[in-house]
């Protein structure tokens, strides 16, 4: 695309977010900030048992508590929750309950204290059923059955099946190998832990339901709600203006949105349902845990000839997403086979968390590749460089691929050649280590839509369905619009995230906003520019194609002194509206953003404490539309990786099946004190298929972070940690052996 090569006036700068003022003054209205007249407050009661049949629910005491307006449960509110079209049907209240935290009732009351008190007055008789917590146990034939189809989760069809993928010839690949290595890596359930607890506000007016949802996708939330409540789309409105993070666990509409809508319906009043932090940790989902068994064939020089991955992932009691593992994506593997078994257990659901299938499996695979480099006596930098992916599945070219430059620039910045030493070779109690790993995320095109209204004063109003979960998507869309229109950014207003007002958006997840909606914004700008030039051509007495628009002036390209202000052109028409729905696709190419991360650590071998002393993240995301928030996203992804590497794990008591650390303090999310300065390098080459040459930014940074840190700890200690999180006690124990 020619646009990738031109000089940009707005794209590629360091631009503060267009809504930063609202965010630093407390004026930004998040869902939980809404107060509607007559609004009730709601809370959710959850199962204390991992697997039990509900025999009876007695709500009479709760209903007698002054201020209580409604109690709903499976007996009077059995709404299916289809959770984005997955085949395994689930209800908002289930009987039997299948994990500690499965919702059993919700109460609406005059205030939240009363709602909370009422939960304690609901009397439930349960018949306990046998339960299973371990996914390997759950696969055994005599294990308690959690889903009707069995504990191996249903795949795309309606039957239980593992995820399988293969190419090349595995047997020949292993035959061609000089050495074959096998090992197992284990990762744990980690919660998304976004700062904003789940909250939903719903009201009904004349048969129309409005849900103010804290959702990453208003369009798909509306689709789900309409389908499950049996309403036409025109009778459902979903609004999400500001939302306090999600990282994948606020996609679509969730069960609490449905409960809120149902409580609002039965009470005839608006309802706000709030999760407590504990609700948030156990009631929704976190990243699926995994046990990954690898068999890797290599040549003596380190070249990978074959990889076989057999894994079990724990997706908890209900299926929401795939349970896949994709950490092998960044390597050139000529012969490959994976069989992943996503398994149901009576535990908290395992589903999407930023780059869902990646950080856990990049940890496993990149740790093992690093280990094999050690066994073969090869410097890890050479090993990763030699085996980096060049073509998708060894055959399809990428739209662009600068992983080699990410590796080279990152290694140079951290000083790999000067600082790398043999693993465990440093003397003294505090040991230096350096490590690296590769990562990235698919860049895919798809359906997007945008509307741009140009006003008679020369300003423009962009309407997009995207929500802004903290990525700066709203600003990104405004920047793309300003660039494509030729209007200064300050003259662009954005209305987003309201299904009654804004056009379709895929939802802000899977790093899809820029590649899906970005092209639609450009096309809508082109549509309105055509209308502008058609009108201005008459005034300036030239042909429309001879005109351009820049800085709010329509001018003749060959003689810019012949010009007219945009506002004057538009004024004749009231306003001008450009719109576009785009659905681009790739043919014979694959898209991916790439990353190489590098870390230096200091391991205190007496305490097991690890300090990250330096962190360098080199990324190929094509053109960076807005450097300031893009850098912030890279930094943030790394910080989430630090938590997963060092401390985070949802612990479940094996006897009672009760999660024992469902809160920030005990789940140990990283704080200011554990966070190093993350140095961000953008390897910027415009991608020929991306809007203004941009690929994706949001998911990639978390993907290599965990493995990078683990490999640095190996370099420091000479000990390989094959199970997350790498806590001080594990380090001390390993070193003392």
């Amino acid at each position, binding site marked *: 695309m020619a646009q990738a090569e031109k000089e940009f006036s707005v794209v590629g700068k360091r631009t503060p977010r267009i809504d*930063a003022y609202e965010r630093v003054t407390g004026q930004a209205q998040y869902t939980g900030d809404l107060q509607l007249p007559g609004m009730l407050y709601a809370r959710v009661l959850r199962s204390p048992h991992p697997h039990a049949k509900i025999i009876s629910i007695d709500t009479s005491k709760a209903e007698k508590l002054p201020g209580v307006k409604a109690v709903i449960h499976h007996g009077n509110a059995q709404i299916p929750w289809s959770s984005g079209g997955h085949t395994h049907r689930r209800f908002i209240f289930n009987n039997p309950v299948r994990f500690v935290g499965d919702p059993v009732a919700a109460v609406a009351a005059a205030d939240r204290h009363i709602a909370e008190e009422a939960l304690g007055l609901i009397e439930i008789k349960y018949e306990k059923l046998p339960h299973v917590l371990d996914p390997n146990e759950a696969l055994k034939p005599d294990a308690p059955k959690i889903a009707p189809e069995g504990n191996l989760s249903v795949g795309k069809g309606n039957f239980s099946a593992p995820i399988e993928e293969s190419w090349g010839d595995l047997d020949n690949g292993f035959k061609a190998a000089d050495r074959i290595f096998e090992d197992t890596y284990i990762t744990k359930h980690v919660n998304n832990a976004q700062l904003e607890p789940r909250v939903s506000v719903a009201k009904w007016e004349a048969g129309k339901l409005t849900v103010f949802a804290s959702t990453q996708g208003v369009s798909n939330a509306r689709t789900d709600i309409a389908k499950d409540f049996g309403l036409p789309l025109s009778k459902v409105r979903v609004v999400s203006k500001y939302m306090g993070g999600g990282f994948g666990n606020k996609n679509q509409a969730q069960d609490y949105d449905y409960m809120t809508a149902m409580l609002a319906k039965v009470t005839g009043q608006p309802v706000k349902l709030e999760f407590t932090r504990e609700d948030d940790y156990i009631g929704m989902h976190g990243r699926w845990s995994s046990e990954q068994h690898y068999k890797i064939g290599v040549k003596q020089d380190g070249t990978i000839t074959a990889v076989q991955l057999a894994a079990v992932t724990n997706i908890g009691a209900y299926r929401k997403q795939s349970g896949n593992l994709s950490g092998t994506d960044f390597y050139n593997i000529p012969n490959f086979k994976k069989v992943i078994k996503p398994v149901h257990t009576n535990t908290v659901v395992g589903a999407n968390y930023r780059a869902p299938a990646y950080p856990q499996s990049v940890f496993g695979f990149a740790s093992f590749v690093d280990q094999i480099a050690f066994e073969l006596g090869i410097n890890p930098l050479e090993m990763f460089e030699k085996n980096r992916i060049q073509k998708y599945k060894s055959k399809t070219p990428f739209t662009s691929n600068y992983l080699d430059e990410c590796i080279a620039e990152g290694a140079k910045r951290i000083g790999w050649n000067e600082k790398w030493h043999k693993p465990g070779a440093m003397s003294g109690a505090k040991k230096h280590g350096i490590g690296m790993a590769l990562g990235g995320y698919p860049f895919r095109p798809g359906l997007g839509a945008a509307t741009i209204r140009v006003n008679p004063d020369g300003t423009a109003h962009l309407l997009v369905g995207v929500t802004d979960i903290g990525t700066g998507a709203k600003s990104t869309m405004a920047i793309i619009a300003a660039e494509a229109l030729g209007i200064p950014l300050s003259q662009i207003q954005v209305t987003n995230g309201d299904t009654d007002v804004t056009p379709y958006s895929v939802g802000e997840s899977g790093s899809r906003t820029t590649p899906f909606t970005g092209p639609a914004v450009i096309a809508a700008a082109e549509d309105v520019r055509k209308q502008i030039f058609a009108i201005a051509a008459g005034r300036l007495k030239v042909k429309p194609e001879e005109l351009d628009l820049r800085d709010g002036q329509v001018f003749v390209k060959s003689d810019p002194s012949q010009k007219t202000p945009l506002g004057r052109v538009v004024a004749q028409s009231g306003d001008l509206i450009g719109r576009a729905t785009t659905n681009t696709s790739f043919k014979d190419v694959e898209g991916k953003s790439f990353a190489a991360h590098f870390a230096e650590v200091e391991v205190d071998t007496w305490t097991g404490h690890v300090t990250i002393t330096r962190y360098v993240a080199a990324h190929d995301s094509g053109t960076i539309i807005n450097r300031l928030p893009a850098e912030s996203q890279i930094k943030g992804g790394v910080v989430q990786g630090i938590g997963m590497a060092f401390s985070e794990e949802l612990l479940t008591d094996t006897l009672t099946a009760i999660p024992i650390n469902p809160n920030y303090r005990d789940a140990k999310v990283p704080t200011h004190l554990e966070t190093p300065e993350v140095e961000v390098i953008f390897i910027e080459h415009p991608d020929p298929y991306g809007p203004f040459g941009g690929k994706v930014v949001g998911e990639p940074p978390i993907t290599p972070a965990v493995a990078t840190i683990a490999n640095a700890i190996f370099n420091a200690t000479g000990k390989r940690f094959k199970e997350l999180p790498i806590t001080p006690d594990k380090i001390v124990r390993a070193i003392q052996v």
Partner: protein
Amino acid sequence: MEDEKKGKGLSRRSFLKGLGGGAIGTAVISTGLVKPDQAEAYSPEAAALTRGRSAVSLKINGKTYRVEVEHRDTLAEVLRDQLGLTGTKIGCDRGECGACTVMINGRNMYSCSQLAVWMAGKEILTIEGLAKGDKLDPLQEAFIEHDGPQCGFCTSGQIMSGKALLTKNTKPTEAQARRALSGNLCRCGNYNREVAAVLAAATKAG
């Protein structure tokens, strides 16, 4: 296997109420509404009567508000629900995340862990009181320039902890800034930016 199970009995709020509300319980008993020997047998109607309410004067952002609050209402709840000062967020409601940080008598404190009835006579500053008219506080400006907010949910708290630091230490080191903000979690992981903004504001002010 059958067993009877209620929902979780003791919430943090009822625990707080228990701590702060000793006097309330006594008062109710002395009026004879609930006899001591019946206190064990819980009835919803009796529970409703034990909810104490008081009028309290709150001095917030230089203005005095006279509000009636339940004794179990936290400052964070009263700010948000009664006074519409929703810039103060509740992220955990248990003193862990710092989203609800405000300044009380010049110190940064978690407003989810302070009962509103304790606030009489104290000077409370929230995010809404930081700007002087249309003029943003230098720290707010620095947060805009340095991309302090990603999702923005922790931002008010980060800024209030930063403000408390800069009030007593106009030239903090990076380590001091990190330490001062360490009670404010940011799951977007924007810690580099928040510290940079505090240091930039200090330089600007100096």
